[in-house]
C-alpha cells in the first residue's frame, strides 16, 4: 500500500509531497490542480508505464512529463508499507525512465505490476474483452463475481457473458464479440459494446479491480457517464473491492455526489477509517498545496453543508508570484 508520494518537476508540479494515504483516497481540486498528475505519477511505477503514459499524452513524449525547463528531469518517489521506490525521468536520455533507489522488494514490484488507470478514454477501446479474458484466466474464475457486481451496481439481470458471433445473420457475417445474456425479465442477449457508456465504464472499473486484486486502482473521474442512482452502488462495489480484495484506490473527482456516495458506502460497510480526502492545488510557484481530511471529519463537514471542493476559498494560500 502506498503511504506517501513525493514529486519533483513532475508535469505541472515543481514540488509536492502527499502523505497519509489510506486504502481509498479521493483527490479533489480545481481544474489543473495536479490530480491527474498524481495518478500518472503512481502509474509510472508499472512496468508498462512507458506505453500507458505515452498513450495518454502522445504529443511530444517524455518531455511533456517534466516541469517546464527543468534540466534535471523529473523525480517521483513512492513510500509504501514495503519500502520505497523512485523513478527518474530524463527527456533526452536513451532510456528516459530510470529506476533509482530501492525497488527490489518482491511485494512492492508485484503491487506496481497491478497498477491500473481507468478513465473514459477506454470507452473507445474494446477493453472489456481483455478484462473478461483476464478474469476467466484466473485460477479461481472471477467472471461470475464481476457479473454479480455489475448486476448489483446497475440493476441488470446478466446471467453470463460469452464470446459469440452476434447478432446472428444467415450469411454468418457477424463479428465475434462479447455478449451479455440477460435472464428474467428480459431474456435476450446484448453485445456488451452496445451497452451505455456509464455501464461500460462501470464494468471496466469493476473488472479492473477484480483482475488486479490487491493492486492499485487509479480512477480518473469515475462519476462521468454515471446516473446519480448508479453512483452509490458503484461506490459500494468499490469499497467492497478494497475491503474484500485488498485494492488500494485513488480516485479524482469533481463530483460532490461521488464524494457523498463514497462516504455513505464506507460508513455502511464499516470501512470509514480507510477512506480519506485530499484537496490539491498547484500554487503559483509550482508547489503543490495539499489538505487532507479523514472520512469522519469530511462527514461532519458534509453534514453541515460545507462543500469540500471549495476548501481553497477558506484557506490562506501563498499569493501570486510577481
Amino acid at each position, binding site marked *: 500500500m502506498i503511504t506517501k508520494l513525493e514529486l519533483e518537476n513532475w508535469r505541472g508540479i515543481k514540488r509536492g509531497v502527499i502523505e497519509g494515504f489510506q486504502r481509498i483516497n479521493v483527490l479533489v481540486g480545481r481544474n489543473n490542480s495536479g490530480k491527474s498528475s498524481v495518478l500518472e505519477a503512481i502509474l509510472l511505477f508499472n512496468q508498462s508505464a512507458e506505453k500507458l503514459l505515452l498513450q495518454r499524452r502522445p504529443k511530444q513524449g517524455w518531455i511533456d512529463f517534466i516541469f517546464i525547463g527543468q534540466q534535471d528531469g523529473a523525480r517521483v518517489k513512492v513510500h509504501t508499507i514495503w519500502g520505497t521506490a523512485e523513478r527518474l525521468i530524463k527527456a533526452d536520455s536513451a532510456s528516459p525512465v530510470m529506476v533509482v533507489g530501492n525497488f527490489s522488494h518482491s511485494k512492492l514490484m508485484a503491487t506496481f505490476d497491478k497498477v491500473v488507470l481507468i478513465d473514459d478514454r477506454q470507452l473507445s477501446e474494446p477493453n472489456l474483452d481483455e478484462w473478461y479474458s483476464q478474469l476467466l484466466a484466473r485460477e479461481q474464475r472471477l467472471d461470475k463475481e464481476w457479473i454479480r457486481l455489475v448486476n448489483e451496481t446497475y440493476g441488470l439481470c446478466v446471467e453470463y457473458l460469452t464470446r459469440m458471433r452476434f447478432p446472428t445473420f444467415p450469411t454468418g457475417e457477424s463479428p465475434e464479440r462479447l455478449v451479455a445474456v440477460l435472464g428474467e425479465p428480459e431474456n435476450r442477449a446484448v453485445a456488451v459494446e452496445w451497452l451505455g457508456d456509464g455501464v461500460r465504464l462501470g464494468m471496466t472499473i469493476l473488472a479492473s479491480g477484480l483482475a488486479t486484486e490487491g493492486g492499485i486502482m487509479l480512477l480518473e473521474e469515475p462519476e462521468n457517464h454515471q446516473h446519480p442512482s448508479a453512483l452509490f452502488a458503484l461506490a459500494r462495489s468499490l469499497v467492497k473491492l478494497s475491503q474484500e480484495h485488498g485494492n488500494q484506490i485513488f480516485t479524482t473527482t469533481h463530483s460532490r455526489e461521488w464524494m457523498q456516495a463514497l462516504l455513505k458506502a464506507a460508513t455502511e460497510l464499516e470501512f470509514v477509517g480507510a477512506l480519506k480526502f485530499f484537496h490539491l492545488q498547484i500554487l503559483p510557484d509550482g508547489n503543490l498545496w495539499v*489538505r487532507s481530511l479523514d472520512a469522519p*471529519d469530511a462527514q461532519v*463537514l458534509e*453534514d453541515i453543508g460545507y462543500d469540500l471542493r471549495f476548501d481553497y*476559498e*477558506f*484557506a*490562506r494560500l501563498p499569493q501570486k508570484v510577481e
Partner: protein
Amino acid sequence: MRAIVMVEGLSDKVFFERLLRLMGLGQAVETYEYSEVGYLKIIRAQSNLPSAQLILLRDLGSATGEELQTEIDKNLQTLGKVKQVEAMHWLFVESGATLHLIPVGLPDDDDLKGLGIRRHELESHLLRFLFDHPEKCIHERTGCPIAKPKKLLQEILPIIRRYDPPLDSAKDVFQVLRGALGWTGGPSNWIGKLLRDVKIECEPAFQTLAERIKQALSTENS
C-alpha cells in the same frame, strides 16, 4: 479568502446571514449551523486548513463571558496544538488557523434583567431591538396593534410563570412575545421582516455582535 462562521441553530443562521449581509460581509464569510454535529467536530475538521478563520458564535446561556471562554478553551485543548493568544482568540499552531469566540446574549441589559431573563441567546438581542423600536418593528412591519412589548411582557410573564416557572431564558420569553404578537411562520419570515432596512452598526441591540465580528475579521486580515 473567506471566514467560516459557526452558529447554534436555524434562527441564528438566518439572523447572522442577514446581519452579515447588512454589514457588507456577505461575500467574506460563510455561515454554518452546528446544532446537529457540535462545534468542536467542525473546528477539529477545519483546524488543519491553512490560516482558516473560524468564528464561533455561542449562546452565553447562564454563564459569563469568562466562563464561556474557559469552557471553550477546555474543549479546544482536547484537540491539541492550540493556544490562546488573547481573550476569546485561539491559534492552531501547525496550520495557522484561528478561532474567535463571540458570546451571544446581553447579560448586562437592565430591561432584560428586570424581566427575569437569566439565560441569554440570540433572542436577547432581538428583544432589545423590539424594545428600542416598537413602532418600527411591530406596527409598521407586522401590522400588529401592540406598541409596547416590554410593558406587555411585564404583565404576562408573572402570570405564565405561575404555571411554567422559571421562564428565564431569552428564547422562551421571545416565544411568549411572538405568540402574543401572533407572529407565525419560520425564522426566515419574521427575522427578515425585523431586520429589513436596519442600519445594524447603529443599533445598540446588535452593536456588540457587529463590532466583535468586524474585529475578528480585521485581526485576521491585519
